[in-house]
Protein backbone atom coordinates (compact mmCIF):
# COMPACT_ATOMS: atom_id res chain seq x y z
CA UNK A 1 0.00 0.00 0.00
CA UNK A 2 3.06 2.20 -0.13
CA UNK A 3 2.17 3.56 -3.53
CA UNK A 4 -1.02 5.21 -2.36
CA UNK A 5 -0.92 8.96 -2.89
CA UNK A 6 -1.85 11.33 -0.10
CA UNK A 7 -3.07 14.21 -2.21
CA UNK A 8 -6.41 14.45 -3.96
CA UNK A 9 -6.71 12.27 -7.01
CA UNK A 10 -8.60 12.73 -10.24
CA UNK A 11 -11.04 10.06 -11.31
CA UNK A 12 -9.49 7.99 -14.05
CA UNK A 13 -10.07 4.51 -15.36
CA UNK A 14 -7.07 3.54 -13.29
CA UNK A 15 -8.92 4.39 -10.07
CA UNK A 16 -11.29 1.57 -10.87
CA UNK A 17 -8.95 -0.85 -12.59
CA UNK A 18 -6.33 -0.77 -9.87
CA UNK A 19 -8.45 -2.95 -7.60
CA UNK A 20 -8.98 -5.52 -10.33
CA UNK A 21 -5.40 -6.33 -11.15
CA UNK A 22 -2.51 -4.17 -9.98
CA UNK A 23 -3.60 -3.99 -6.34
CA UNK A 24 -5.99 -6.93 -6.25
CA UNK A 25 -6.78 -7.34 -2.54
CA UNK A 26 -6.50 -11.12 -2.59
CA UNK A 27 -3.92 -12.10 -5.18
CA UNK A 28 -1.53 -9.18 -4.76
CA UNK A 29 -2.00 -7.76 -1.28
CA UNK A 30 -3.05 -11.03 0.40
CA UNK A 31 -5.67 -9.27 2.50
CA UNK A 32 -8.95 -10.67 3.78
CA UNK A 33 -7.96 -14.26 3.19
CA UNK A 34 -10.21 -15.76 5.85
CA UNK A 35 -13.52 -15.45 3.94
CA UNK A 36 -11.72 -16.14 0.64
CA UNK A 37 -10.80 -19.62 1.80
CA UNK A 38 -13.70 -20.36 4.10
CA UNK A 39 -16.76 -19.79 1.92
CA UNK A 40 -15.46 -20.66 -1.55
CA UNK A 41 -16.42 -24.33 -1.48
CA UNK A 42 -19.17 -23.54 -3.99
CA UNK A 43 -19.65 -20.90 -6.66
CA UNK A 44 -22.93 -19.67 -5.21
CA UNK A 45 -21.38 -19.00 -1.79
CA UNK A 46 -18.49 -17.20 -3.45
CA UNK A 47 -20.81 -14.90 -5.39
CA UNK A 48 -22.93 -14.11 -2.33
CA UNK A 49 -19.91 -13.40 -0.17
CA UNK A 50 -18.33 -11.26 -2.88
CA UNK A 51 -21.46 -9.16 -3.33
CA UNK A 52 -21.92 -8.75 0.43
CA UNK A 53 -18.33 -7.56 0.81
CA UNK A 54 -18.69 -5.28 -2.22
CA UNK A 55 -21.75 -3.63 -0.68
CA UNK A 56 -20.13 -3.11 2.73
CA UNK A 57 -16.96 -1.82 1.10
CA UNK A 58 -18.75 0.73 -1.08
CA UNK A 59 -21.17 1.88 1.63
CA UNK A 60 -18.54 2.28 4.32
CA UNK A 61 -16.13 4.02 1.93
CA UNK A 62 -18.86 6.50 1.01
CA UNK A 63 -19.70 7.28 4.62
CA UNK A 64 -16.09 7.50 5.76
CA UNK A 65 -15.29 9.77 2.85
CA UNK A 66 -18.30 12.00 3.57
CA UNK A 67 -17.41 12.26 7.25
CA UNK A 68 -13.66 12.51 6.76
CA UNK A 69 -13.45 16.09 8.03
CA UNK A 70 -15.66 15.44 11.06
CA UNK A 71 -13.99 12.32 12.47
CA UNK A 72 -11.35 13.21 15.09
CA UNK A 73 -7.99 11.66 14.30
CA UNK A 74 -7.57 9.94 17.67
CA UNK A 75 -10.71 7.83 17.47
CA UNK A 76 -10.81 7.29 13.71
CA UNK A 77 -10.19 3.53 13.74
CA UNK A 78 -12.94 2.96 16.30
CA UNK A 79 -15.31 5.13 14.23
CA UNK A 80 -14.50 3.22 11.04
CA UNK A 81 -15.13 -0.09 12.77
CA UNK A 82 -18.51 1.07 14.07
CA UNK A 83 -19.49 2.31 10.58
CA UNK A 84 -18.43 -0.99 9.01
CA UNK A 85 -20.19 -3.02 11.71
CA UNK A 86 -23.43 -1.13 11.04
CA UNK A 87 -23.41 -2.00 7.35
CA UNK A 88 -22.44 -5.59 8.05
CA UNK A 89 -25.42 -5.92 10.38
CA UNK A 90 -27.66 -4.64 7.57
CA UNK A 91 -26.22 -7.16 5.09
CA UNK A 92 -26.57 -9.91 7.66
CA UNK A 93 -30.29 -9.29 8.09
CA UNK A 94 -30.89 -8.78 4.35
CA UNK A 95 -29.29 -12.12 3.45
CA UNK A 96 -31.25 -13.82 6.19
CA UNK A 97 -34.45 -12.38 4.69
CA UNK A 98 -33.62 -13.27 1.07
CA UNK A 99 -32.36 -16.82 1.47
CA UNK A 100 -32.13 -18.76 4.69
CA UNK A 101 -30.21 -21.60 2.96
CA UNK A 102 -27.52 -19.20 1.85
CA UNK A 103 -27.43 -17.63 5.29
CA UNK A 104 -26.87 -21.02 6.91
CA UNK A 105 -24.20 -21.96 4.35
CA UNK A 106 -22.21 -18.79 4.97
CA UNK A 107 -22.71 -18.99 8.73
CA UNK A 108 -20.73 -16.60 10.89
CA UNK A 109 -18.65 -15.45 7.94
CA UNK A 110 -21.15 -12.74 6.98
CA UNK A 111 -20.68 -11.13 10.38
CA UNK A 112 -16.95 -11.66 10.13
CA UNK A 113 -16.84 -9.24 7.19
CA UNK A 114 -16.29 -6.68 9.98
CA UNK A 115 -12.85 -8.10 10.60
CA UNK A 116 -11.96 -8.16 6.88
CA UNK A 117 -8.81 -6.06 6.62
CA UNK A 118 -9.58 -5.04 3.01
CA UNK A 119 -12.44 -2.85 4.19
CA UNK A 120 -10.68 -1.23 7.13
CA UNK A 121 -7.59 -0.82 4.97
CA UNK A 122 -9.58 1.04 2.29
CA UNK A 123 -11.22 3.27 4.89
CA UNK A 124 -7.94 4.16 6.55
CA UNK A 125 -5.67 4.44 3.55
CA UNK A 126 -8.00 5.79 0.88
CA UNK A 127 -11.52 6.91 1.77
CA UNK A 128 -10.39 9.07 4.72
CA UNK A 129 -8.21 11.14 2.40
CA UNK A 130 -10.11 11.32 -0.88
CA UNK A 131 -13.28 12.92 -2.18
CA UNK A 132 -16.47 10.85 -2.22
CA UNK A 133 -16.57 10.20 -5.97
CA UNK A 134 -13.03 8.92 -6.17
CA UNK A 135 -13.29 6.68 -3.13
CA UNK A 136 -16.59 5.16 -4.27
CA UNK A 137 -15.14 4.25 -7.66
CA UNK A 138 -12.02 2.87 -6.02
CA UNK A 139 -14.13 0.87 -3.58
CA UNK A 140 -16.21 -0.58 -6.43
CA UNK A 141 -12.99 -1.61 -8.17
CA UNK A 142 -11.58 -3.21 -5.05
CA UNK A 143 -14.87 -4.98 -4.30
CA UNK A 144 -15.08 -6.29 -7.86
CA UNK A 145 -11.48 -7.49 -7.64
CA UNK A 146 -12.32 -9.28 -4.41
CA UNK A 147 -15.42 -10.87 -5.95
CA UNK A 148 -13.45 -12.03 -8.99
CA UNK A 149 -10.86 -13.60 -6.72
CA UNK A 150 -13.59 -15.39 -4.77
CA UNK A 151 -15.08 -16.63 -8.06
CA UNK A 152 -11.67 -17.88 -9.23
CA UNK A 153 -11.44 -20.05 -6.14
CA UNK A 154 -15.11 -20.98 -5.92
CA UNK A 155 -15.47 -22.26 -9.48
CA UNK A 156 -12.25 -24.29 -9.42
CA UNK A 157 -13.07 -25.83 -6.06
CA UNK A 158 -16.64 -26.68 -6.98
CA UNK A 159 -15.65 -28.04 -10.38
CA UNK A 160 -12.93 -30.32 -9.04
CA UNK A 161 -14.63 -31.17 -5.78
CA UNK A 162 -18.13 -31.92 -7.02
CA UNK A 163 -17.92 -31.84 -10.83
CA UNK A 164 -20.49 -29.03 -11.01
CA UNK A 165 -20.62 -25.25 -11.43
CA UNK A 166 -23.53 -23.46 -9.75
CA UNK A 167 -25.07 -26.89 -9.25
CA UNK A 168 -25.04 -27.72 -12.98
CA UNK A 169 -23.23 -30.97 -13.82
CA UNK A 170 -20.18 -30.25 -15.99
CA UNK A 171 -18.25 -33.50 -16.01
CA UNK A 172 -19.87 -36.80 -16.93
CA UNK A 173 -21.08 -39.08 -14.18
CA UNK A 174 -17.89 -41.14 -14.50
CA UNK A 175 -15.95 -38.29 -12.92
CA UNK A 176 -14.69 -39.18 -9.48
CA UNK A 177 -14.92 -35.94 -7.43
CA UNK A 178 -11.85 -34.79 -5.47
CA UNK A 179 -13.69 -34.34 -2.22
CA UNK A 180 -10.58 -32.81 -0.65
CA UNK A 181 -11.06 -29.70 -2.82
CA UNK A 182 -14.28 -28.81 -0.99
CA UNK A 183 -12.72 -29.55 2.40
CA UNK A 184 -10.43 -27.01 4.11
CA UNK A 185 -7.08 -28.19 2.63
CA UNK A 186 -8.42 -27.68 -0.89
CA UNK A 187 -8.85 -23.97 -0.18
CA UNK A 188 -5.18 -23.59 0.68
CA UNK A 189 -4.08 -25.67 -2.32
CA UNK A 190 -6.22 -23.82 -4.88
CA UNK A 191 -5.23 -20.36 -3.62
CA UNK A 192 -1.58 -21.47 -3.59
CA UNK A 193 -1.93 -22.70 -7.17
CA UNK A 194 -3.47 -19.40 -8.33
CA UNK A 195 -0.65 -17.45 -6.68
CA UNK A 196 1.89 -19.71 -8.37
CA UNK A 197 0.25 -19.06 -11.74
CA UNK A 198 0.27 -15.28 -11.23
CA UNK A 199 3.88 -15.30 -10.02
CA UNK A 200 4.84 -17.32 -13.07
CA UNK A 201 3.06 -14.91 -15.45
CA UNK A 202 4.67 -11.91 -13.74
CA UNK A 203 8.10 -13.47 -13.93
CA UNK A 204 7.70 -14.30 -17.61
CA UNK A 205 6.61 -10.74 -18.36
CA UNK A 206 9.63 -9.32 -16.54
CA UNK A 207 11.90 -11.74 -18.41
CA UNK A 208 10.41 -10.61 -21.71
CA UNK A 209 10.92 -6.93 -20.82
CA UNK A 210 14.50 -7.68 -19.85
CA UNK A 211 15.13 -9.52 -23.11
CA UNK A 212 13.60 -6.69 -25.12
CA UNK A 213 15.80 -4.15 -23.35
CA UNK A 214 18.83 -6.34 -24.00
CA UNK A 215 17.94 -6.53 -27.71
CA UNK A 216 17.59 -2.74 -27.91
CA UNK A 217 20.90 -2.23 -26.15
CA UNK A 218 22.65 -4.66 -28.52
CA UNK A 219 21.05 -3.08 -31.57
CA UNK A 220 22.32 0.42 -30.73
Amino acid at each position, binding site marked *: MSVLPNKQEKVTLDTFMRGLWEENPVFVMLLGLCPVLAVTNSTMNAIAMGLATLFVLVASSTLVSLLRKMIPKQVRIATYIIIIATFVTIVDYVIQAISLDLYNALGAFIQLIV*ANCVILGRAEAYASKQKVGVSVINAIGMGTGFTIALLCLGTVRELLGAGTILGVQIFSSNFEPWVVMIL*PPGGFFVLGAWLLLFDYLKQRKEQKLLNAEGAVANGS
Partner: protein
Amino acid sequence: MDPNSLTFIFLNAALINNFVLALFLGLCPFLGVSAKKETAWNMGLATMFVMLVSSISAYGINWILVKFEIEFLRLICYIAVIASAVQLVEMTVKKFSPALFRALGIFLPLITTNCAILGLALFQTFREYDFFQSLAFSTGAGVGFTIALMLMAGLREKLELAKLPTVSQGAAMGLMLAGLLSLAFMGFAGLGGSHA
Protein backbone atom coordinates in the same frame (compact mmCIF):
# COMPACT_ATOMS: atom_id res chain seq x y z
CA MET B 1 -18.00 -38.36 24.15
CA ASP B 2 -20.78 -36.02 25.19
CA PRO B 3 -20.64 -33.06 22.77
CA ASN B 4 -21.35 -30.64 25.60
CA SER B 5 -18.67 -31.86 28.00
CA LEU B 6 -15.85 -29.42 28.74
CA THR B 7 -13.16 -31.84 27.52
CA PHE B 8 -14.89 -32.32 24.21
CA ILE B 9 -15.38 -28.58 23.66
CA PHE B 10 -11.70 -27.99 24.43
CA LEU B 11 -10.45 -30.74 22.10
CA ASN B 12 -12.91 -29.76 19.41
CA ALA B 13 -11.71 -26.15 19.36
CA ALA B 14 -8.03 -27.06 19.64
CA LEU B 15 -7.69 -29.98 17.23
CA ILE B 16 -10.76 -31.25 15.38
CA ASN B 17 -12.06 -27.87 14.26
CA ASN B 18 -8.78 -26.02 14.61
CA PHE B 19 -9.50 -22.32 14.18
CA VAL B 20 -6.77 -21.72 11.63
CA LEU B 21 -6.53 -24.96 9.69
CA ALA B 22 -10.17 -26.05 9.57
CA LEU B 23 -12.19 -22.86 10.00
CA PHE B 24 -9.78 -20.41 8.31
CA LEU B 25 -9.94 -17.84 11.09
CA GLY B 26 -6.95 -15.66 11.85
CA LEU B 27 -5.05 -16.36 8.65
CA CYS B 28 -3.37 -12.95 8.54
CA PRO B 29 -1.19 -13.52 11.63
CA PHE B 30 -0.85 -17.18 10.66
CA LEU B 31 0.86 -16.25 7.39
CA GLY B 32 2.31 -12.97 8.64
CA VAL B 33 4.17 -13.78 11.84
CA SER B 34 5.05 -17.43 11.35
CA ALA B 35 8.55 -16.84 9.99
CA LYS B 36 10.32 -17.48 13.32
CA LYS B 37 9.41 -19.86 16.13
CA GLU B 38 10.03 -17.29 18.86
CA THR B 39 7.71 -14.60 17.45
CA ALA B 40 5.14 -17.29 16.66
CA TRP B 41 5.19 -18.39 20.30
CA ASN B 42 4.76 -14.83 21.60
CA MET B 43 1.95 -14.15 19.15
CA GLY B 44 0.26 -17.38 20.17
CA LEU B 45 0.43 -16.45 23.87
CA ALA B 46 -0.88 -12.94 23.29
CA THR B 47 -3.76 -14.24 21.19
CA MET B 48 -4.64 -16.90 23.73
CA PHE B 49 -4.79 -14.26 26.45
CA VAL B 50 -6.95 -11.86 24.45
CA MET B 51 -9.23 -14.74 23.42
CA LEU B 52 -9.85 -15.60 27.06
CA VAL B 53 -10.55 -11.98 28.04
CA SER B 54 -12.83 -11.26 25.09
CA SER B 55 -14.68 -14.55 25.51
CA ILE B 56 -15.53 -13.61 29.09
CA SER B 57 -16.56 -10.08 28.08
CA ALA B 58 -18.62 -11.37 25.16
CA TYR B 59 -20.44 -13.71 27.50
CA GLY B 60 -21.33 -10.79 29.79
CA ILE B 61 -22.35 -8.52 26.92
CA ASN B 62 -24.57 -11.14 25.37
CA TRP B 63 -26.33 -11.65 28.71
CA ILE B 64 -27.11 -7.93 28.86
CA LEU B 65 -28.21 -7.78 25.20
CA VAL B 66 -30.59 -10.71 25.62
CA LYS B 67 -31.95 -9.17 28.82
CA PHE B 68 -32.89 -5.94 27.03
CA GLU B 69 -33.81 -7.73 23.77
CA ILE B 70 -31.44 -5.72 21.59
CA GLU B 71 -29.56 -8.61 19.96
CA PHE B 72 -29.27 -6.75 16.67
CA LEU B 73 -26.58 -4.61 18.29
CA ARG B 74 -24.50 -7.72 19.03
CA LEU B 75 -21.92 -7.30 16.28
CA ILE B 76 -21.27 -3.63 17.01
CA CYS B 77 -21.00 -4.29 20.74
CA TYR B 78 -18.66 -7.27 20.31
CA ILE B 79 -16.23 -5.48 18.05
CA ALA B 80 -16.17 -2.43 20.31
CA VAL B 81 -15.64 -4.61 23.38
CA ILE B 82 -12.84 -6.56 21.73
CA ALA B 83 -11.07 -3.40 20.64
CA SER B 84 -11.26 -1.96 24.14
CA ALA B 85 -10.31 -5.30 25.73
CA VAL B 86 -7.15 -5.38 23.65
CA GLN B 87 -6.39 -1.82 24.70
CA LEU B 88 -7.00 -2.68 28.35
CA VAL B 89 -4.85 -5.79 28.18
CA GLU B 90 -2.09 -3.75 26.60
CA MET B 91 -2.18 -1.14 29.39
CA THR B 92 -2.34 -3.76 32.15
CA VAL B 93 0.55 -5.75 30.76
CA LYS B 94 2.58 -2.58 30.30
CA LYS B 95 2.00 -1.55 33.93
CA PHE B 96 2.55 -4.89 35.66
CA SER B 97 5.03 -6.70 33.41
CA PRO B 98 7.15 -4.46 31.20
CA ALA B 99 9.25 -7.49 30.20
CA LEU B 100 6.26 -9.32 28.78
CA PHE B 101 5.08 -6.10 27.14
CA ARG B 102 8.37 -5.73 25.31
CA ALA B 103 8.26 -9.38 24.25
CA LEU B 104 4.76 -9.03 22.78
CA GLY B 105 5.52 -5.66 21.22
CA ILE B 106 3.54 -4.85 18.10
CA PHE B 107 1.55 -8.08 18.26
CA LEU B 108 -0.92 -6.93 20.91
CA PRO B 109 -2.60 -4.10 18.96
CA LEU B 110 -2.60 -6.27 15.80
CA ILE B 111 -4.83 -8.79 17.53
CA THR B 112 -7.82 -6.42 17.30
CA THR B 113 -8.13 -7.13 13.59
CA ASN B 114 -7.73 -10.87 14.08
CA CYS B 115 -10.98 -12.45 12.97
CA ALA B 116 -10.33 -15.49 15.16
CA ILE B 117 -11.22 -13.38 18.22
CA LEU B 118 -14.50 -12.09 16.80
CA GLY B 119 -15.24 -15.54 15.38
CA LEU B 120 -14.75 -17.06 18.80
CA ALA B 121 -17.19 -14.62 20.40
CA LEU B 122 -19.78 -15.22 17.65
CA PHE B 123 -19.47 -19.02 17.70
CA GLN B 124 -19.84 -19.23 21.45
CA THR B 125 -23.02 -17.15 21.19
CA PHE B 126 -24.46 -19.22 18.32
CA ARG B 127 -23.79 -22.47 20.14
CA GLU B 128 -25.28 -21.08 23.36
CA TYR B 129 -22.39 -22.18 25.58
CA ASP B 130 -22.68 -21.46 29.28
CA PHE B 131 -19.90 -19.67 31.16
CA PHE B 132 -17.60 -22.65 31.78
CA GLN B 133 -18.15 -24.04 28.30
CA SER B 134 -17.16 -20.63 26.91
CA LEU B 135 -13.99 -20.74 29.00
CA ALA B 136 -13.12 -24.23 27.72
CA PHE B 137 -13.92 -23.14 24.16
CA SER B 138 -11.73 -20.03 24.26
CA THR B 139 -8.80 -21.85 25.90
CA GLY B 140 -9.07 -24.61 23.32
CA ALA B 141 -9.18 -22.12 20.47
CA GLY B 142 -6.13 -20.30 21.86
CA VAL B 143 -4.17 -23.52 22.28
CA GLY B 144 -5.14 -24.64 18.78
CA PHE B 145 -4.07 -21.30 17.31
CA THR B 146 -0.69 -21.52 19.06
CA ILE B 147 -0.16 -25.11 17.90
CA ALA B 148 -0.93 -24.21 14.28
CA LEU B 149 1.33 -21.15 14.42
CA MET B 150 4.24 -23.08 15.96
CA LEU B 151 3.97 -25.96 13.47
CA MET B 152 3.92 -23.51 10.58
CA ALA B 153 6.90 -21.59 11.97
CA GLY B 154 8.89 -24.81 12.37
CA LEU B 155 8.12 -25.85 8.80
CA ARG B 156 9.04 -22.46 7.41
CA GLU B 157 12.36 -22.41 9.25
CA LYS B 158 13.18 -25.76 7.65
CA LEU B 159 11.97 -24.52 4.28
CA GLU B 160 14.58 -21.78 4.26
CA LEU B 161 17.24 -24.47 3.89
CA ALA B 162 15.51 -26.05 0.91
CA LYS B 163 16.21 -25.11 -2.69
CA LEU B 164 13.02 -23.85 -4.30
CA PRO B 165 12.38 -22.62 -7.82
CA THR B 166 12.16 -18.82 -7.69
CA VAL B 167 8.54 -18.84 -8.82
CA SER B 168 7.30 -20.70 -5.80
CA GLN B 169 9.05 -18.66 -3.13
CA GLY B 170 6.90 -16.52 -0.87
CA ALA B 171 3.19 -16.64 -0.21
CA ALA B 172 2.35 -19.45 -2.63
CA MET B 173 4.67 -21.90 -0.84
CA GLY B 174 3.31 -20.81 2.54
CA LEU B 175 -0.21 -21.63 1.40
CA MET B 176 0.83 -25.04 0.07
CA LEU B 177 2.43 -25.81 3.45
CA ALA B 178 -0.71 -24.66 5.23
CA GLY B 179 -2.72 -26.96 2.98
CA LEU B 180 -0.57 -29.95 3.95
CA LEU B 181 -0.89 -29.06 7.64
CA SER B 182 -4.63 -28.74 7.22
CA LEU B 183 -4.71 -32.14 5.53
CA ALA B 184 -2.86 -33.61 8.51
CA PHE B 185 -5.27 -31.99 10.96
CA MET B 186 -8.21 -33.56 9.14
CA GLY B 187 -7.04 -36.81 10.68
CA PHE B 188 -8.35 -35.52 14.00
CA ALA B 189 -11.87 -35.60 12.60
CA GLY B 190 -11.83 -39.25 13.62
CA LEU B 191 -11.97 -38.08 17.24
CA GLY B 192 -15.69 -37.62 16.79
CA GLY B 193 -16.38 -34.04 15.74
CA SER B 194 -18.05 -33.03 12.54
CA HIS B 195 -17.19 -29.91 10.60
CA ALA B 196 -19.51 -27.27 11.89
